[in-house]
């Protein structure tokens, strides 16, 4: 297989999966809430996404006259680019990985910290009060939760002795890291939800308070890019959880890629279940929870992991 074909296939599959997980979320949410969900277009409503795409492409692509035009157009692109860049380092299977990179985890942290710009700039360039409020919330939320994301990841790095994701997967050949790092996993999971601002941490776009938050002024495909970017973020965080804590593509009997998809799919479903089950906290509760509970816990996790590793090494 030529060198550009694998990345291209992964890209196309990811974009399709990102779009189809919208359908999945709507159907599964409906199931849990005793509704039917989209079931008219195609078998099981599978073609609903196609219908939505046609609608969203043919809508008027409106840029508000009071907006900062260049930033307004750039910001939905940033979220898509950054999320897709994140997939470059994920080992989907032994030989299916776009880029083998020594400092993969640091690259990931860099990517996630840069994706803050998309929402901040969207909120700023919209030049409207609700969008600005959403952007402010995002900036504070994402900067705070990035700290614990990094600290929680360091536990895995200590165990695997390496920053590269394929080495981390290889280090989990016997025991998955979830057994050694249960607290780290919970911290990373919470930080991951906050990073991609999904429910219950979707305060940047809390529709009951600030209309639609940072994408209030967006329409047509620019809104669509934010929307698909969010679902790609869900898939990215799920595949990271799989890689870091659940042994990546390793598993008995079935081929590696199938194991990876199964594990990732489980966590995508878990993200959807969270949205159905947990109400949104208040904004100050979110920040207090971050700094008063998660920060001490993640520092403690790092300390204990380091101490145990050092004492075992002797």
């Amino acid at each position, binding site marked *: 297989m030529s060198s550009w074909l694998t990345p291209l296939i992964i890209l196309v599959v990811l974009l399709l999966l990102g779009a189809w997980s919208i359908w999945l979320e709507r159907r599964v949410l409906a199931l849990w809430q005793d509704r039917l969900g989209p079931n008219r277009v195609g078998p099981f409503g599978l073609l609903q996404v196609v219908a939505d795409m046609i609608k969203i492409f043919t809508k008027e692509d409106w840029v508000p006259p009071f907006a900062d035009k260049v930033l307004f157009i750039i910001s939905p692109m940033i979220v898509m680019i950054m999320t897709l860049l994140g997939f470059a380092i994920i080992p989907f299977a032994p030989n299916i990985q776009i880029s083998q990179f020594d400092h993969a985890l640091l690259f990931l942290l860099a990517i996630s910290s840069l994706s803050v710009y998309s929402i*901040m700039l969207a909120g700023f360039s919209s030049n409207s009060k609700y969008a600005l409020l959403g952007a402010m919330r995002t900036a504070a939320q994402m900067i705070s939760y990035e700290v614990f994301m*990094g600290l929680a990841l360091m536990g895995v790095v200590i165990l695997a002795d390496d920053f590269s994701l394929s080495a981390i997967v290889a280090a989990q050949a016997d025991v998955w890291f979830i057994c050694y790092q249960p607290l780290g996993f919970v911290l990373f999971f919470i930080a991951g939800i906050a990073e991609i601002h999904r429910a219950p941490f979707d305060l940047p776009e809390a529709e009951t308070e600030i209309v639609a938050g940072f994408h209030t002024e967006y329409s047509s495909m620019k809104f669509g890019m934010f929307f698909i970017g969010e679902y790609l973020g869900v898939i990215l965080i799920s595949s990271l959880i799989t890689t870091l804590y659940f042994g990546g593509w390793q598993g008995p009997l079935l081929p590696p890629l199938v194991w990876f998809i199964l594990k990732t799919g489980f966590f995508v479903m878990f993200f959807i279940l969270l949205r159905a089950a947990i109400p949104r906290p208040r904004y100050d509760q979110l920040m207090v929870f971050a700094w008063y509970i998660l920060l001490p816990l993640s520092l403690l996790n790092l300390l204990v992991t380091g101490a145990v590793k050092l004492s075992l090494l002797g």
Partner: protein
Amino acid sequence: MLETIFIITAAIILISALLTITAHNVVHALLYLVVTMLAISLIFFILGASFAAALQIIVYAGAIMVLFIFVTMMLHQGEKSLAQERHLFHFTTSITALTLSSLLFFELIYMLFFTSADTANSMVTAQSSAIITVKDIGKQLYGPYSLLVVISALMLLSALITAIHISKSPATIQIKAKGDNL
């Protein structure tokens, strides 16, 4: 190939740094600064310091610049403040700075082209140097430089405590003090 990338990146750094100071919109200026940071990180990467490159993005572009933009977003006044600032700035105020920086610039030119210092070679050695791993950096930081690490940690801690103290409003401190007296 690597040299071409280096030159292109250096040009991007210079242009975006220049645009940072000349841009009228504060947020645009900060975004040009972000581009500068990203390009500097690429330079680090070319020179083999991929850890420093990642930190450059995480710390500078990802955290500090976000906070800068956060603050300017809150204080952004639009056209009104722009007009005000334009009124404040006059060319004569920058004469001293221009003179000093042009002096520095001429010194640099002199150093590069008229002294025997082997500047041409230093670039080559930097490029061919071995890739620095995280382990090397860790050994250096917690070996010979451990005192510096501890001191900077103490400094950050004191800054944190100060920030918490300042952010507490005087009213709550007074109430606390009264409660302690009772």
